[in-house]
Structure formats: C-alpha cells, structure tokens
C-alpha cells in the first residue's frame, strides 16, 4: 500500500470516505483540497474537503488543520478516516499503484516483507478496492493486486477482476500470488472466465526441489501445488512472470532451478530474479537468509545465462549493479516500485547510478561491498 499519509482533525463524518482529489471543479465523488484563506463553507458540490485551515463548523465532511498536505494530484484517490487520517490509495502519476486485498496468506515465507496476519479483512478491503476501481481513470496503464494472498478472496477475487475489466478495459492488471490455488482445476476454470491478455500473474518459485521450496514458504505441498497451478494456468493461456528472491536458501540451486523452469515451465513470459528486501520477517531470519550478493554472483550468472540462451526473458530487479558481474548488467531492471529504490550517500559519485537498481528503501541492512563504479 502507499506509504503516503497525512493527519488532521475530522468533522462532520463517522464512516470512511473515499473520493477523488480536485483543486477546483466539483464533480461526483470529488474531494476538494481547499487553499482559500477565509472561512467560507466550500462544501458546495464536493463530497468532502481537506484544508490546512482550522474550521469549527462545516456542512460536508472535512478534515481540517492538516499541518502539511502530501503532494496530491488532481485525480488521486484518497480515503478519509473518521480519526482524521488521510490515506492515499491511488496516484494518477505513478506506475506503482496496488490494490491491497488481504493480510491473510496460505504460506508464511521466511523472507516475507509484509508478514501475513490472521484478520478477517477480506470484505473490508474488497469494498475499499471496489470504490477505488470505480474512481480511477480508464487511461490507467497498470494496476497491481497484492496481499497476503489475493486468491484467498475466493469469489471476491473473480468479482474484483471482472470489475476492473469492466471499468478499466485497457489497464494491465498485475497480480502477485503464490499460485497454489490454481492447482485446483475448478479455481483455474473460474479464473479463465475473467482472464484477459491484459492480466499478468507474478508467481514465486524458489527451488527445483520441492522440500526446499516448501521450507522457504513454510507450507507443506506448496511446491507441487504451485507447479501444478502454473501448468493449469498455462493451459488456459495465462500470462505468467516467475519470481525468484535471491538469498542464502535459494542461491545454491539457481542453475538447477533455471533448468527446471526451461524444461517444465517454458511457457512463462519472464523470470525475475530479485534482491532480498531486508524488512518484515527477514531481519528476524537474518542468519538463515542473509548472504552478501557478491557470494551468489556465480550461481546467478549461470542461471541467467542459461535462461537467456534458451530464449526465456530474464530480469534482475532491485539489485545494486556493483554487486553483479558485468555481463549481468544488461539484465538489470531498475526497480519494480520506484518509491522503493534508494541509494547510499557514496552512490552519488557512481557513474552508473542512473541505471542502477539501488537498494530497497525499506532494507535495514545493506552489503558492505557497495562500491561506486
């Protein structure tokens, strides 16, 4: 979810309000950002108002006395909570918008960056997302769906996709899922009815050996379910991106994993190798997971070269260039999420900074070998 939050004093509402930011024109569901200095009531025609001013009475819902309003653009979608918090749910000028669906998951990966919680939150998020989808422009290029595990929404999962298909027929939908639910034929069949060429599934695979994968995701049967799910998805022509997180438990068999992917899953559109995000569970499992990227360079090199030689698209995400062998640089892609890309002070002198994947903004531990080129 977006990190951007502001807080002020709420007035005239008791339920969360979701609307679209405007700086002038009143339209349905529009929330005015009011920069006027006098104390006139500006509620006319707006769903709600945000202001820095202090207000004592207001006809329509308002959050006032906001010390500093996050830079919001005309068309951004926000949620006003009854406690005065303003959450940004969608930014029109970003390619990193995601719809968060649930905190629940059927796996519990050792390196999860956003550890799952057992909360009955599916209906809540479904309703929020439903409104967001209705409010965002149909010109939106791409929208992500994430969790937790989105397929746990069951019927709501398919409802949400068909709602997006209806409202945003030209938008690419990128769903992050562990793919296990697709092992069930009837789930995949239902998915087929909402699937389209605009939809891409990002699915992680951490080993070619089932027990290693099951251990990493902390769930028995997970590997076989994911692989069967991938095959079911291929049979309905779904677009798939495989994701491999690089850490101490995955690096040794990267060459074997690459071979497994080409031989058994050659239909995937892309394989993405990703640097470890040092947040969530990872610091807790530091001893199991942390390895300096320099130490897995050889295995990564073999895996990437093999897949590339065999005609499979490969990318390396969120990875400092200086920790990759030079021949790997051309596979490096800046970042999955621009707001997650950060650098060290010494990176300022680096000649390749502009092309570098950098370091996860959220990471609390970085390699000591970062070295300007």
């Amino acid at each position, binding site marked *: 979810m977006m990190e951007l939050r502001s807080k002020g004093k709420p007035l005239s509402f008791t339920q969360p309000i979701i609307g679209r930011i405007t700086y002038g024109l009143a339209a349905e569901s529009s929330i005015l950002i009011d920069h006027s200095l006098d104390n006139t009531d500006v509620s006319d025609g707006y769903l709600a108002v945000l202001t820095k001013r202090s207000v004592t009475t207001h006809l329509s819902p308002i959050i006032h006395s906001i010390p500093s309003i996050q830079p919001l653009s005309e068309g951004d979608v926000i949620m006003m909570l009854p406690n005065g918090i303003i959450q940004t749910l969608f930014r029109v000028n970003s390619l990193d918008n995601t719809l968060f669906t649930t905190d629940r998951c*059927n796996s*519990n990966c050792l390196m999860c960056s956003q550890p799952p919680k057992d909360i009955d939150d599916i209906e809540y998020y479904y309703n929020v997302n439903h409104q967001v989808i209705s409010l965002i422009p149909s010109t939106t290029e791409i929208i992500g769906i994430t969790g937790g595990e989105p397929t746990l929404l069951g019927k709501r999962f398919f409802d949400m996709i068909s709602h997006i298909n209806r409202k945003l027929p030209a938008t690419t939908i990128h769903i992050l899922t562990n793919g296990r639910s697709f092992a069930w034929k009837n789930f995949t069949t239902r998915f087929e009815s909402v699937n389209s060429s605009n939809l891409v599934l990002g699915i992680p695979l951490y080993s070619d050996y089932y*027990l290693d994968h099951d251990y990493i995701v902390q*769930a028995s*049967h997970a590997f076989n*379910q994911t692989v*069967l799910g991938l095959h079911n998805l291929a049979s309905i022509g779904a677009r798939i991106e495989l994701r491999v997180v690089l850490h101490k438990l995955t690096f040794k068999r990267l060459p074997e994993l690459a071979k*497994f992917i080409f031989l058994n899953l050659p239909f995937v559109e892309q394989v993405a190798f990703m640097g470890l995000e040092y947040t969530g569970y990872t610091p807790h499992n530091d001893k199991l997971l942390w390895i300096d990227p320099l130490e897995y360079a050889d295995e990564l090199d073999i895996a990437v070269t093999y897949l590339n030689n*065999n005609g499979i698209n490969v990318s390396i995400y969120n990875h400092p260039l200086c920790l990759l062998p030079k021949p790997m640089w051309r596979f490096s892609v800046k970042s999955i999420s621009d707001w997650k890309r950060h650098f060290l002070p010494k990176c300022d002198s680096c000649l390749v900074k502009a092309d570098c994947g950098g370091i996860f903004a959220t990471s609390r531990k970085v390699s000591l070998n970062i070295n300007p080129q």
Partner: protein
Amino acid sequence: MKNIISNTYSRKFRGISTFESEAESIYFLLPFKFHSISIDREVLVNEIGDYLIVPQGTAKAIVHREIDFSSNLYRDLVANFFISPTPVPELLNVISTRYRTKKKSLGSFTSLHIFVVTLRCNHSCHYCQVSRAAESKSEFDISYKDLDAGINHMFLSPSEELTVEFQGGEPLLAFDKVRYAVERIQLLNEDFKKEISYVICTNSTILNDEILLFCKNYNILISTSLDGPAFIHNANRFKSGRASYDLVIEGIDRTRQALGHDKVSALMTTTALSLKYPKEIIDNYVENGFGNIFLRPISPYGFALKNQKKNHYQTAEFLDFYKQGLEHILNLNAQGVFFKEDYTSIILQKILTPFTENYVDLQSPTGLVSSVIVFNYDGFVYASDESRMLAEIKDYTFQLGHVTQPYEELFLGDKAKQILNNGVAECLAGCSDCAFLTYCGADPVLHYATQNDMQGHRAFSIFCKKNMEIIRYLFEMLDIRKGYVESTFQSWIHKPAA
C-alpha cells in the same frame, strides 16, 4: 493433496528437518534408462528425455536405494523425475504434458508432401538413386491428372501446416508442372486456409528470370545440391558441358539476389571421396555464405544394399568424418563464425529442450506416411523419398498405391499400417530399453533395405550404430567440455541459421 491454510502466523518457523521428516523415508523409481558414455561416467535419461550425467555406478546405487536423502544428487533425481517420494509422482500431470509435447508431431499427421514432377535430369551423378531419363522425354513427367489427385489428398491432411516440396530428376525441367501445382494449391487454399510453404529441390543450373520471379511471388525456397569444393562437387556430379560447380554457385548467387540471402539452402551428399575432406567441405559452405550444413551419411540405397560388412565399415568412416566436421564447426564458432550442423541440432533440441523438431528419420512412431508422403512422377504413392528409390530397383514394398485411389486406402491402408507398426521404437527389440530412445527414431525403410526386415536387428543396424555413437559423443562433449560447447549448442537450437 491438502490445502492447509494456517490460521496462525508466527515467527516460530519450522526447520527444514520437520519438512524432511514429514516426507516418506523411502523413494520410488520412475521409469528411466542409462548408458555408459566414458570409462567413469554414465548418463541417466528419463521418459521425457531429461538427463543427468553422473559417475558410473549411480544407476545401480539408485536402484539399491543407496542415495542419501540430504545429498544434492537426491535433489537432482527428484527434481528431474528419476525418482519420486510418492509411488505416483504428485507432478504426474506435468510429466504427461511433457511427454505429449515430445510427441507433438503425432497430432498433426502428414505435413511434408513431396511431388516428383519429373524424372528427367541434366546431370548424371554417380550416386543418384533414381534412374534418370534424358532431358527431352516428357513421358517421365507427372500428369496433370495425377498432380490434381495428389493436391486433393494433401488438403485432406489434418495438419494445419503443409510443406510442398518439388523434386526430380530436376524439377525445373518440368517447370510448367511446378507452376500449375503452386497456382492450383494457392487457389484451393483460399478455402482451406492452411499455412503452406514451398521448396524446390534443384541443382540450380537452369534457373532463369521467369522461374525466379515466380519463386519470389510465392515465397518459394530453393534447396540446392552443393557437395563442397569444385574438386569434390564436380567429381560427384557429372554434367556434360560446363562444370556443375560453377553453374551451382552462379545459380545460388542469382537466387540470393532475386529472392534474398536466406531463401537458398544447400544439401550435401556424402560420398567416399567426401569422407576425406570434412574441413574443406565445411569451409566451402562458409565461403559460400551458408550458416549451416547437414552432414548426411552415405545413403545405403542402391550401391550398398544388404552388404552388412561394407555398410558397417562405411558407418565407422562416416562417424570419423562427422566428428572431425563437428570439431571444425565448433572451432569456427569459437572464432565468432555462427555456423551449425543440422543433424546435431535436431538431436540436441531433443536432449536440451522440452521440444522436438519434426524430422522424419528421428521420429517414433516413424514419420513415414504420418509426416511425409511422396507422389511419384508416374502417380504411384510412396512412404518416403527412399521408398521410391527402392522402387527404382523394382522393390515396391513401400509403394502405398496409386494417387487415383481414395485417401483412406493410401494413408490408412494395410501397407501404411504395416509400416507404422514396424516403426515404433518403443516396441523394437533393443530400442525399447535403450537410454537414447527419446532422442532416436525408427526407420523401417532403411532396415528393410539393409536387413530385409522392417524392424531389423539392432546389433547389425547402421542406423543404430550411427545414432548411438553420435548421441553418446554429444553427451561426452556436454560432460567434459561444458561451458562453451553447451552455450554454442544452445545457440544452434534457438537461433536460425544466419
């Protein structure tokens, strides 16, 4: 299979050992075979063609359940479907999909349709398998009626992709028949809407502007004969008047200018003379701008029929020729020249990828009839090019009938069934338990021609002798010369010839 949705998440993570102890403490064997590739190494190959190269004795250790569960080998064996922790592998669906993919060619039935439009030729090659006729005798041309019947049969094939190949003799001596056939096929295809590609197999000596313009209009590929440098080519291919080599090179240049560089391919015939000059032949191909060569063995039809001793001797010689050639080609690649050997590429695709190319000689069930069919100049229908060569020495074993007969009688008749029944390597003695089965094929015509038996005896089979050694050799290279050789091999499989 259970879907466990844990209700509580905790930071008390389960160790790898708890997952291991949950798994079965025995393992089960999946079907696989093995073959010794050197003094100390053997290759294990499973049902879908995936392989592992391991120390000698590994197969035995696997069978005796001596593999340590925590070893990397154990992981390799499970991940590559050699053994399974459960009696029926949980990924059986994946394995069966992989198997179907390997046998994909079966689904489409006959795709290559060869029309021998004339038996006339302007050359007299000493190794020619079909008796040629003087250039002027038009009774050796196919009739329009038979051509029509063949075309009608072709459109009955369920295959969505069709290749039409015109052969001879020299097919361009009957260019009127080629033109007629292409135009008729184009017309009929307005309804059938198949993917059709055309190839003319010519010695390139009589190409003219009219023919080239026609080829350009219908995107027709030219396949020409080129046996190597002039001293080999001319010795093999006698033509009265100008030397064949100069005419062929002229023809190739002219065709490339008219149709584009990649519209011409060359086919080499190996003769006793060629066997001494692998490098020279390959260099000649490179000089003439080709990106690939097919090192084909001496055809056993005609001259060497049923002469076991001579056949075996020549197969051994051919294998030397092939290895020297392959080594030379690898050196060229190392120097930055992209060049590949076609037979190697076909086998490597089967070894290194989940896919398989349709190549008649390396298919099981055999590609005879089910991948290729030949309509001869006299209207008789044959299971392959080699089948009609046998017919030229009055052996009609592989003659399926006459083109005027109904489709079912030809393609699904008793002859076709007999050929197919004898062409399933999985059921042939020797092949059925050979580790290289997935990469190899069955060839009833060759075995009939050399052993008088469509199945043949593997121990005396030149087909087996050649394939077994080539495949073993490739595994040995993959094992001891990994890195560069493997990436060169990968580039052959995935990049089209330059």
